[in-house]
C-alpha cells in the first residue's frame, strides 16, 4: 500500500488547478477531511525551504514554485525559444515555398498585412532580402536563410517537402487508414 502522503503529493503535482478537499476525498475514498488536512500540513513542512510550496488558495490546495524564485522561473520561460506564431509560420511557409516573393504577393495570399510578421521573421533571422523584382516600384524580394534550414532541420532547400507532400501528411480526412482489412 502506498502512503497517503505520497499519493497526495502526486495528486497535487499532477493537478493543473487547485485541488479541493472534496476532490481529494473523492480520489482517496474514505479518508476524512481532518486527515487530509493533516497530511497536507506534513507535506507543507517537508517542502519548507525548497523551491516548491503547497498553497491553500480559493478552491483548495495547489503546488507552485516559491515566489522568491520567480526571477529564475521567468528566465526559464523567456529563454524558451518562443514558438513561431501561426501567422509567422504561414508567412514563412509562403516565403519558403514561393521564394523569391514580394510582400505584396504574400499579402495577396494571406489577405492581411504581414509587416509585423515579416519583421519577426527578420529578427529571428529566418528570412532575408534576396533582391528586387523587376516590376514597377522594384519591390523587395524575400527568401529564406541558412538559419531557416537549421531551425527546421533541413540540409538544403531541396530537402523541403513539396506542398503536395505536406498536404498528404497533414490534410486528408483525418482517418488513420488502419483497421484493415
Amino acid at each position: 500500500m502506498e502512503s497517503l502522503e505520497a499519493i497526495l503529493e502526486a495528486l497535487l503535482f499532477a493537478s493543473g488547478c487547485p485541488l479541493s478537499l472534496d476532490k481529494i476525498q473523492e480520489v482517496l475514498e474514505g479518508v476524512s477531511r481532518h486527515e487530509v488536512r493533516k497530511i497536507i500540513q506534513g507535506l507543507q513542512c517537508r517542502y519548507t525551504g525548497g523551491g516548491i510550496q503547497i498553497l491553500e488558495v480559493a478552491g483548495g490546495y495547489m503546488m507552485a514554485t516559491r515566489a522568491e524564485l520567480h526571477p529564475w522561473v521567468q528566465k526559464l520561460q523567456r529563454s524558451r525559444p518562443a514558438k513561431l506564431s501561426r501567422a509567422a509560420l504561414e508567412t514563412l511557409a509562403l516565403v519558403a515555398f514561393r521564394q523569391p516573393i514580394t510582400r505584396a504577393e504574400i499579402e495577396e495570399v494571406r489577405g492581411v498585412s504581414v509587416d509585423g510578421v515579416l519583421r519577426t521573421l527578420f529578427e529571428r533571422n529566418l528570412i532575408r532580402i534576396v533582391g528586387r523584382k523587376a516590376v514597377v516600384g522594384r519591390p523587395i524580394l524575400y527568401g529564406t536563410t541558412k538559419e531557416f534550414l537549421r531551425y527546421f532541420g533541413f540540409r538544403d532547400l531541396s530537402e523541403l517537402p513539396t506542398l503536395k507532400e505536406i498536404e498528404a501528411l497533414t490534410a486528408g480526412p483525418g482517418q488513420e487508414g488502419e483497421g484493415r482489412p
Partner: protein
Amino acid sequence: MVFQVKLDVFEGPLDLLLHLIEKEEIDIYDIPIARITESYLEYMRMMDELDLEVAGEFLVMASTLLYIKSKMLLPSTEGEGGDMLSAEDPRAPLVERLLEYKKYKRAAAFLQEREAEQQKIFIRDAGTEGPSPLPFEASLFDLLSAFREVLQKSSSRPSLEVTRDRLSLDEKIAELANRLRKRSPLDFFSLFSLQADRGELILTFLALLELIRQGLALVRQAEPFGEIMVYRKKPSRGRIPEVPSKV
C-alpha cells in the same frame, strides 16, 4: 476450421501469414505452401462473406502464394532433381520478407510495452490553455515603435483631405472598447486605418493608451518583437484598476 472473427487485427497480408504459420505450428523455413495457401484463401473468403473490404495487398499476396505453389508443383525445371538449393527455393523471398516483418512486429510489441509503462507516469497538467508559451506584455517602447511604423506608412500615402468630423478622444475610447468587446485579441496594426490622417491615427493610439491605463485593455506579444496583440481586459471588480508600470 475455426476462424477468429476479429479479422481486423491483421495489419496486412504478412501479419495474417505469420498468424497462420504460428497457429498451425509451421516451421517458417519449410512452409507447406499448398496448405498455407489454402488457409490464406479460406481467410480471404471469410472476409468476403463478412463483407469486409479486402485490401489490395491481400489479393497481391494471394496471387504470390498461388504463384509459389505452382512453381513448387513443377518438377524442377533446371534438372536438379528434387533437391532444391534454398536460394532457388521459390519460397525463399517470401520467407525473407516474413522474417524481416517479424523483427519489426516484435519491435512494435516492445514499444507498446514501453508505452504502457510510460503512461503510468504523469507530468504536470499545464492547465486547460495547453502548452502555449505565456505571452508577455508588450512594453511602451514596442507600442511606440509599432505606432511609428503606422505613421510612416500613412505619411507615404498621398494625404487625403478628409473632412469628416473627427471623434473626440472619449468617443474614440468608446469605439475602441467596443471593437475589443466584439473581438479580442486584435492585431495592433488592425486598429489603424491607413486611410486615416495623422491626427486620427494619433487619436486612436491615445485611446489605446488610455484603455491600457484604465486596465480595460492589455497589450501582449508572444515573443520579443513579435506581433503585438491587443486583448480586452475585464475591469476588475472592487479593485482600483492598476496602472501598468510600463506605461
